[in-house]
């Protein structure tokens, strides 16, 4: 009797529990199949580019997807292309110097915009955002004329690097968004200890702002590395000042039937950026969220 009376109760509970579990499993399978499909969309282009980069010239012109013979020497050929090393050096110089100067010049501005109270503060902030949103093509003609006619410095990296001395609107904005989140008490404690604003910025705020500074540095490095418009305008007239993104395109021109070499060069231009991302993933993702969501 006891057994019999417990039966209906068990049959009433168990199906719904197993149904819930079955639904959870189905949900898991659906979500993860979708994720795998999306991952294929995002990753297959890399795979195809890589596979083509190790094909022979002839095979790269067919629609075969898998290399018959792995031609690793394609990478050596690309590496030895005249100019390729110069483009590397120039890109590193542009991105390295640009990043350093941007951080040094943007941090005090961001600090002032986040912490000082002064008249015109809102106006200054609005101007920063306007600068951030300004298409570079709007101001390029007077700027080019300035560098070409007044300073005679086109055909070099100077017109690309020097502006970084004067703050970068996006970096200022990102740093300011972060500095707003630093609790006031730290700054007041520093003031009571007799720190001036510059000391406070360097000794108290900077150590706390490391993730934001890292994010800004990475963004700036990538944006210099990826820049095509700037080098096309200011450096294109002198092959010795070309950067990778400008050189890569002309590389395709010189090897216009060799998709294998072009894809090997493409891999070589993508690789450092991807590598850097894996080394500093956290800082990067934090930076993206900071610009988009806070506030």
């Amino acid at each position, binding site marked *: 009797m006891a057994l019999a009376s417990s039966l209906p109760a068990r049959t009433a509970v168990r199906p719904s529990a197993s149904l819930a579990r079955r639904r959870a499993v189905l949900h898991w399978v659906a979500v993860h199949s979708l994720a795998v499909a999306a991952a294929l969309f*995002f990753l297959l*282009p890399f795979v195809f580019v890589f596979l083509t980069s190790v094909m022979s010239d002839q095979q790269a012109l067919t629609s075969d997807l898998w290399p018959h013979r792995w031609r690793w020497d394609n990478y050596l050929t690309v590496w030895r292309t005249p100019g390729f090393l110069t483009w590397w050096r120039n890109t590193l110089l542009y991105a390295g110097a640009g990043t350093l100067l941007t951080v040094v010049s943007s941090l005090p501005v961001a600090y002032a915009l986040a912490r000082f109270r002064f008249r015109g503060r809102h106006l200054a902030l609005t101007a920063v955002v*306007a600068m951030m949103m*300004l298409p570079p093509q709007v101001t*390029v003609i007077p700027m080019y004329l300035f560098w070409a006619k007044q300073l005679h410095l086109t055909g070099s990296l100077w017109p690309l690097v020097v502006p970084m001395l004067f703050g970068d609107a996006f970096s200022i904005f990102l740093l300011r968004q972060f500095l707003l989140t630093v609790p006031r008490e730290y700054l007041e404690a520093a003031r009571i200890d007799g720190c001036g604003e510059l000391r406070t910025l360097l000794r108290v705020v900077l150590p706390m702002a490391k993730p934001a500074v890292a994010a800004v540095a990475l963004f700036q490095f990538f944006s210099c590395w990826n820049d*095509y418009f700037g080098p096309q305008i200011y450096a294109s007239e002198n092959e010795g000042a070309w950067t990778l993104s400008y050189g890569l395109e002309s590389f395709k021109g010189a090897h216009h039937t060799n998709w294998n070499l072009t894809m090997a060069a493409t891999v070589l231009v993508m690789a450092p950026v991807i590598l850097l991302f894996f080394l500093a993933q956290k800082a990067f993702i934090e930076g993206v969220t900071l610009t988009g969501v806070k506030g």
Partner: protein
Amino acid sequence: MALPLPSAPAALRRRRRREHARTLAFLSPWLIGFGVFFAYPLVSTVYFSFMRYDGFTAPTFAGLRNWDYVLTRYPFFWQGLGNTLWLVAVMVTLRVAFGLGIGLLITKVKTGAGLFRTAFYLPYLAPPVAATMAFAFLLNPGTGPVNHLLGELGLPQPGWFTDPAWSKPALTLLAMWGVGDLMVIFMAALLDVPREQYEAAELDGAGPWQRFRYVTLPAISPIVLFAVVTGVIQTMQYYTQAIVAGKVASGVIGGSGQQFEPGYPHGSTWTLPQMVYSLGFQRFDTGSACVVAVILFALSMAFTSVLLRRRSGLLGED
């Protein structure tokens, strides 16, 4: 006894002045930058738009002639504006929708979330020139892997970058491949939606779609607005991918002297920023290039002003 009284405001004034000097010192890099790289060139651009100037001989006053030329006689202006607006409407919409979809998906992934997130994010990092070269190869109508796969599946094989009807969709596909930035932004916003609201909605019998429509969407709407407006502004500046795709697909790239058909094929990838470059640096018609630049500026700032509205909270004023 009367002495300290007048000195107090003087000390205050001195302190004010010192604070003022300090603020100026901190802001000075950007103040110089604003003048030299924003205000001065902007005013010059407007000035040159009323001048006849070939970049070599002295500029002469032209009145509204450049404006008249660009708006009524330059054969490619309206086509370029049309393409830019097409990209703004289609590319931005699809990128935001897809970015939100991928953001939602990644918040639901339980196993290997970190790996999936990295996979979805990586293409965003690919340098635009390299990414465009890769897509020009992948979408190569004759031998590219994509059409190869489409053929195996018995699907139609579009001409992509070589067909004016497909070149902008091909660029859109490339833009969606690099949606990682939006994924991260949406992911963070979605994780911020209070869980109780979902539970309450579920108790009220709301299904997954209703929960998305009435809980998720209102909660993340400021971020959606942010993504749309910044997307529109970025697309107004759309340049590198369009120019590289056109050059690679037409086979005319690099080297000197070779003139490539702008916006190949048939002007279908021709945009406003390319117009500034082409008019100013290839045809040496500085005045007309500046007219296009002023139009580009006006359009971008119109959209920027939406971002600056208090409602969107971009500035996070306290």
